[in-house]
């Protein structure tokens, strides 16, 4: 169901499992599940519980943590101890539906210096179209005044 991607550099900063309270979600108000139109401005709101759990990479892929990674760790084997701390990528269908739950702000690629995710914002060897139906790049940043071959030479990000 999931394709596992090893985001190895990321789990270094993770908190120790003991510090995390393992309580489930308690009493989130019902409107957070249902309301998509904001009363005040009349626009769609991003789904908050998606933003709590998922992250969108600049190449349009969403990642999430491994569910149950803090449960009964002592019982589980060595490989699981390691891989459960990796982040996992969502499937294509899931990525599409998560994109639909977001506002344009969250779909825009964002650039942060010293971003720990910077290696994962690009993906190579993908055959799907580079542009969406409006001609905007899906996976790569739009370069200023650069033709395609030059941009390939210097950036290598698609």
């Amino acid at each position, binding site marked *: 169901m999931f394709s596992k991607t090893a985001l190895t550099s990321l789990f270094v900063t993770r908190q120790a499992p003991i510090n995390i309270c393992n309580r489930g979600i308690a009493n989130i108000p019902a409107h957070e599940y249902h309301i998509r*139109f904001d009363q005040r401005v009349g626009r769609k709101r991003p789904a908050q519980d998606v933003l*709590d759990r998922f992250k969108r990479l600049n190449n349009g892929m969403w990642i999430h943590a491994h569910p149950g990674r803090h449960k009964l760790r002592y019982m589980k084997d060595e490989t699981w101890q390691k891989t459960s701390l990796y982040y996992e990528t969502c499937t294509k269908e899931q990525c599409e539906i998560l994109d639909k739950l977001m506002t344009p702000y969250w779909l825009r690629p964002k650039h942060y210096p010293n971003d720990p995710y910077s290696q994962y914002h690009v993906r190579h060897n993908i055959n799907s179209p580079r542009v969406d139906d409006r001609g905007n790049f899906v996976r790569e940043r739009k370069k200023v005044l650069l033709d395609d071959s030059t941009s390939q030479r210097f950036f290598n990000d698609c």
Partner: protein
Amino acid sequence: MASTSITRFTAIIRTTSVRGLHDRSSVPRVVDDREKSTAKYTDAGYTFRYHQQGVDPLPRIPDCKVPVARPAYKVRDQWSDEAARFGQNDYIDLLGDGSVHPAQLQYHTPTWLRGFPGQHKANELIKLIHYRNLYDAKLKQNSPKRWHELRKRIKYLMMQHNYNKQDEIGRERNLGLWEEEPDYTYKDKSRRSFRDEIH
């Protein structure tokens, strides 16, 4: 020559007959106008009258002298002042000095709707919210009945779009009505209730 014309004729016959048989199962194809190709004339305005003699009476009660209601005959003058100048200043933001935009020149629209994007989903809701945001104080003060009705309508439409119509899931159209903002605060799921404030 003759043979080619004959084949062409048969080809025409065959296409028409096939189309008549099952029209909807064809592969989606590029057509000039889909409605035109699928819509059939179901009513050519002809009533079958096999056993009636003479001419059909006009659609009115016998011996009734009241003329048939129909819109008044109007002659449209193509060169009247408005018609001759139709479309003037539509390109004023490009051809003028850039200080005026055609959205500002929509003097025939209500003031609060001038330049407001008109074609999108949930248009009525967004329009009413815009109206409410502009005139909330005046409405409350001077026409509480209308304020009440507006509130009711907005509430109804909100329910409609949030629960009954599920078409708002999808790419939001950038209508230029809202500033881009994250609109997100992380909620700590380890809290006992969402009401607990953690400082």
